């Protein structure tokens, strides 16, 4: 059959034109929708990441409530850590391997700070950091806590601003 001899009616042309326009409009609306969706949900990934991070921070802070860390002299301080317990915990061999999947566990004083950085039994309490676990290959998270302990100079208990720094194995 020779195509040159096929006759198309005017109505067929009109339908063809309309189909072309409809297809073009659908493509246009499709592109617009893709743009809209990408803008609308662009921040979703960041929001999820920040929510996850906050959940991790919350769980890091929960460590302050465990018996090894908790400050029991005050009833209304869930975020208080007993520094006197921690300095004793530092060199206890029985706690080796106790904290599973944790590559780093440090407690640092933020305010006030002292000249000595790492705490030992000799320089305690005039020091800044108690390192309980020091490994490598970790991603660290920090949570604010109150570092409490007995101060012989004032003859009373005192609390200072600090943070728990925790590094989890295999988190990238």
């Amino acid at each position: 059959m020779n195509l040159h001899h096929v006759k198309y009616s005017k109505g067929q042309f009109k339908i063809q034109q309309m189909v072309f326009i409809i297809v073009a409009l659908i493509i246009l609306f499709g592109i617009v929708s893709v743009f809209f969706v990408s803008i609308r949900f662009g921040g979703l990934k960041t929001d999820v990441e920040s929510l996850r991070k906050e959940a991790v921070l919350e769980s890091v802070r929960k460590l302050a409530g465990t018996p090894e860390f908790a400050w029991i002299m005050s009833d209304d301080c869930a975020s208080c850590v007993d520094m006197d317990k921690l300095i004793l915990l530092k060199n206890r061999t029985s706690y080796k391997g106790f904290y599973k999947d944790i590559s780093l566990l440090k407690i640092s004083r933020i305010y006030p700070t002292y000249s000595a950085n790492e705490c030992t039994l000799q320089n305690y309490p005039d020091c800044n950091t108690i390192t309980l676990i020091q490994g490598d290959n970790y991603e660290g998270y920090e949570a604010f806590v109150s570092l409490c302990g007995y101060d012989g100079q004032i003859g009373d208990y005192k609390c200072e601003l600090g943070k728990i720094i925790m590094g989890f194995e295999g988190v990238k």
Partner: protein
Amino acid sequence: MTRKKGQEEIVGFVLIVVIITIIFVIFLGFKLRNPEPTQKESEIIYQFLESAMKQTSDCALNTNGKRADLDELIRECHSTNGLCDNGQNSCDRAKEILVDMLNNTWKVGEDYPTKGYIVDASYSYNSTQTQNEEIFTITAGNCSSSFSGNSYLIPEFPGSIVVNAKLCN
């Protein structure tokens, strides 16, 4: 000059495309301009405020010589603006301690991730009251862009003291 019908239809189609594009551009413009700074509630700031309020100061408010925590110092600052045993004003000392803690925690400036901060304490008689009595405000750096913040409540009958902290990114 006579126009063919086909040309008219093409012009019509182009017009539709142009109108839709203009609407889309206007929508994008509104969406991306984002003139007001956005605020995010931050868990880390709440943790900071909660822990900071437990800070034992060097200021004894009573004759028994017991050193006051920062939240007690702010309460004293609001209620009587009393003096510490060493003669320092409770409001000044509370502000000084808070500033030192903030500066030790976050480095502020154009070259740092934190561009500035605003910390304010105010007294609110109840949660529905819009006007609060301002106790003090501490600011540093530039806070014109987006920020994350949180509040900490210190009970003080009949209302409570609200400490707000905002970190500007």
